[in-house]
């Protein structure tokens, strides 16, 4: 019944689109009719690519656009109308005057071997805006996310199964206005959230937000732009009864200095109160940065961030430093580097975590091959140390990629990523250090169309040794043949294989075949 309702709704959208289209100018799109065949064996909860696949006939309207003489534009992209993995988007707009958009989509996540324990997330929403005058935009929207079903959680290391029901609905509504003027704007918005949970008692809550934000260059000194805003938010939780009030103010400045220097600064101050329990939480954030650009050749930036979090029990302070830059000294070679440091200390009271030190570093190089594509190499790392418990987490990722493209032949892409990390408990009171690594290979080939036949293929190999020992292989191949009178036939085959070598029931093999008849049409 539920399916019938949504198919009817999609049909109605299609009907409206065609009805309007008949009365107007020009347009077109593609109708895709097909069938999806799924042949799966093993544990249906281990391969995320196939969670949301359904076997059966598939109907889609893709890239539909219709133009009217008065400049109105109707567009729709309605994928898998007949299946439970639908993804529907439609909009009607006239640039600079008004716009309306609607969307509905549904996604399934499987949690058990047989696939009968799953949750489904359904999102439906609409947005609209109108410009009563060119400088003023009034907008509003509604969105509803429903998630329902059964969620199975397996508790390691002995694999006890914990089964929980999920059934919640989250609705949000907003309305606002934006006035724009020379290089500046003023925005005011009201937003409301409602969260209701039918599966878990005492989880319902609601929130309201009023927000005002503005930015503008300083009159007669346009090198300096200022911004600022204020927000009031209240949250109500039913049981236990909690009523939170939050006031937040912020401001920022960007100052374009001579010689391509740019100074930026911002601050934010927030206070959250809960009057019944006399809880007050203050947050203060301030950042400054200065950058220097050499247009086309490079740039450097240095930044500092300070954050203070203060509640009635503890006060923590963190200092963060940022250094980043890019260099294109040789026109074909672009190098980027970034280093971010943050240390957090407990200045009052005692927290469970205590003082922390974090470092993140990143460097990448990309070389552009003339006419043929590019080659890239990147490395990123993160180090996290905690002095209180004397531990260190070290994480590194290296990625190499080659993308070759030539109009006469097509394109080919190859990527290899290696991830390596370690956890080191230096107290040795608990000898539980460990290391982990992942390898990921991907490749794809997309040659040019030959005698009305387009083919493509690709593959992925994934090997991971962390707390599990996983191997995953995927491959796909597809072909499309163009027939007379704007018809096309398309066939796709995908294969997935998954193995967890440490857990006997975590294996999966899937063969997915899609066959489509595509008709491009013009009105």
């Amino acid at each position, binding site marked *: 019944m539920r399916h019938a309702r949504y198919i009817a709704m999609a049909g109605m959208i299609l009907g409206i689109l065609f009805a309007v289209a008949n009365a107007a100018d020009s347009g077109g799109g593609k109708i895709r009719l097909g069938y999806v065949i799924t042949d799966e064996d093993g544990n249906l909860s281990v391969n995320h690519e196939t969670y949301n696949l359904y076997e059966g006939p598939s109907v889609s309207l893709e890239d539909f656009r219709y133009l009217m003489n008065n400049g109105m534009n109707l567009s729709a992209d309605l994928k898998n109308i007949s299946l439970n993995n639908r993804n529907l988007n439609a909009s009607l707009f006239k640039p600079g005057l008004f716009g309306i958009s609607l969307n509905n989509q549904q996604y399934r996540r499987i949690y058990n071997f047989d696939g009968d324990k799953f949750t489904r997330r359904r999102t439906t929403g609409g947005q609209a805006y*109108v410009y009563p005058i060119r400088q003023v935009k009034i907008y509003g929207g509604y969105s509803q996310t429903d998630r329902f079903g059964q969620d199975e959680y397996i508790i390691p290391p002995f694999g006890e199964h914990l089964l929980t029901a999920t059934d919640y609905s989250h609705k949000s509504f907003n309305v606002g206005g934006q006035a724009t003027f020379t290089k500046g704007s003023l925005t005011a918005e009201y937003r409301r959230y409602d969260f209701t949970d039918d599966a878990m008692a005492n989880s319902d809550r609601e929130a309201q937000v009023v927000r005002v934000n503005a930015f503008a260059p300083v009159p007669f000194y346009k090198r300096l732009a200022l911004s600022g805003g204020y927000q009031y938010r209240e949250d109500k939780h039913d049981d236990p009864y*909690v009523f939170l009030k939050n006031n937040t103010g912020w401001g920022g400045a960007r100052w374009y200095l001579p010689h391509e220097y740019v100074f930026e600064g911002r601050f934010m101050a927030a206070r959250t109160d809960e009057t019944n329990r006399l809880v007050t939480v203050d947050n203060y954030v301030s950042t400054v940065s200065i950058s220097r650009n050499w247009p086309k050749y490079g740039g450097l930036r240095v930044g500092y961030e300070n954050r203070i979090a203060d509640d009635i029990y503890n006060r923590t302070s963190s200092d963060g430093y940022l250094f980043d830059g890019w260099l294109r000294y040789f026109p074909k070679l672009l190098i980027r580097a970034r280093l971010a440091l943050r240390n957090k200390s407990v200045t009052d009271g005692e927290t469970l975590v205590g003082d922390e030190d974090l470092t*993140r570093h990143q460097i990448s190089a990309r070389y552009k091959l003339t006419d043929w594509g590019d080659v890239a190499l990147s490395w990123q790392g993160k180090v996290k140390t905690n002095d209180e418990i004397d531990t260190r987490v070290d994480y590194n990722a290296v990625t190499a990629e080659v993308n070759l493209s030539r109009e006469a032949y097509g394109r080919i892409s190859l990527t290899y990523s290696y991830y390596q990390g370690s956890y080191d408990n230096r107290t040795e009171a608990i000898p539980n250090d460990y290391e982990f690594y992942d390898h990921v290979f991907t490749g794809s080939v997309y040659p040019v169309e030959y005698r009305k036949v387009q083919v493509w293929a690709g593959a992925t190999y994934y090997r991971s040794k962390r707390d599990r020992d996983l191997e995953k292989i995927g491959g796909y191949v597809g072909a499309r043949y163009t027939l007379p009178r704007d018809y096309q036939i398309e066939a796709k085959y995908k294969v997935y294989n998954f193995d967890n070598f440490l857990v006997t029931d975590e294996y999966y093999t899937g063969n997915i075949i899609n066959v489509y008849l595509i008709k491009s049409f013009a009105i």
Partner: protein
Amino acid sequence: MGSMYRHMRKPNTLALIIMVVAASVCFSVARSDNGVTVDDATCLTCHDGMDKTLANGPHRLASEIENPAVPVACEKCHEGAAEHVDNPSRETIKTVAEMPAHDAVQLCSQCHVAHVALDNYGLDAHAVQELNCADCHRVHGTSPKLLLDDNAKFCEKCHQDKVTDGMGRTSHPIRGGFVTCLSCHRFVKRQSDDLAYQMQGTCRSCHPEQAGPFLYEHDAVNAYSVENGGCTECHAPHGSENDRLLKQPGQMLCRQCHMVPAKHLYNQAHGNAWARYDCTVCHTAVHGSFDSNIFLDPNLEARWGGHCFNCHSLNQ
């Protein structure tokens, strides 16, 4: 009397909407003059067919529309048209894609509030990389928001490592277009309204069940400008080998920041239960709680049986 005044003060929503729409139409009719020096027909004499590339998108030429709402014309974006008519070389005309990034932003922001202007709070990685508007948008395009690709695949050009992350055991539903890069990464880096509540707004929009604000917040979900933090402290949003996109499963994740308390280690009451179970079996509310400042499940006794709270308390 009071009820009568209340009735009179009640706004008539329908009337308001009609007024707004009527005003919109009136204004749209009123502004048809686009004030260009070289008309589109002149440009199309040589650049035949370029109007067709604009026809399906929001930059459709005003000269082709009855009552255009915005005066889009070739010369509005291509500066130098007058000189170009006399001297039709590539050097005499400007195109967005070939402009320095700063100039492109200035040009586009005549009609659009530029991202870099909205991001007046700084530290935007793209703003300092000399990225031109045309690096992500195709002015002569038809896709939503004129992006080079509907599913933001242009991001892959520089962020291929994130794509390979998605090949892992779990990932967001990028396939099928249910989630795209732009679902989470907003170029307009607005001042987060969630800093005060210590939960990232990006994740909140799809995962409200985990979102605060809570009476007792978990400090780990604080987000920082320079060195991340927040939800990504525990979750790998692009892909992971673990359920729920966790960076590590079970205890291993918690122990990166927390030491296992001594009372868990040496208390035999549960048969060394700490060694058997994940921390989150009892500390269920790791995203924040209204009941417990150590995030214990208030329904622990009901779930597992026994008398947990005879020895333990919800708060410490």
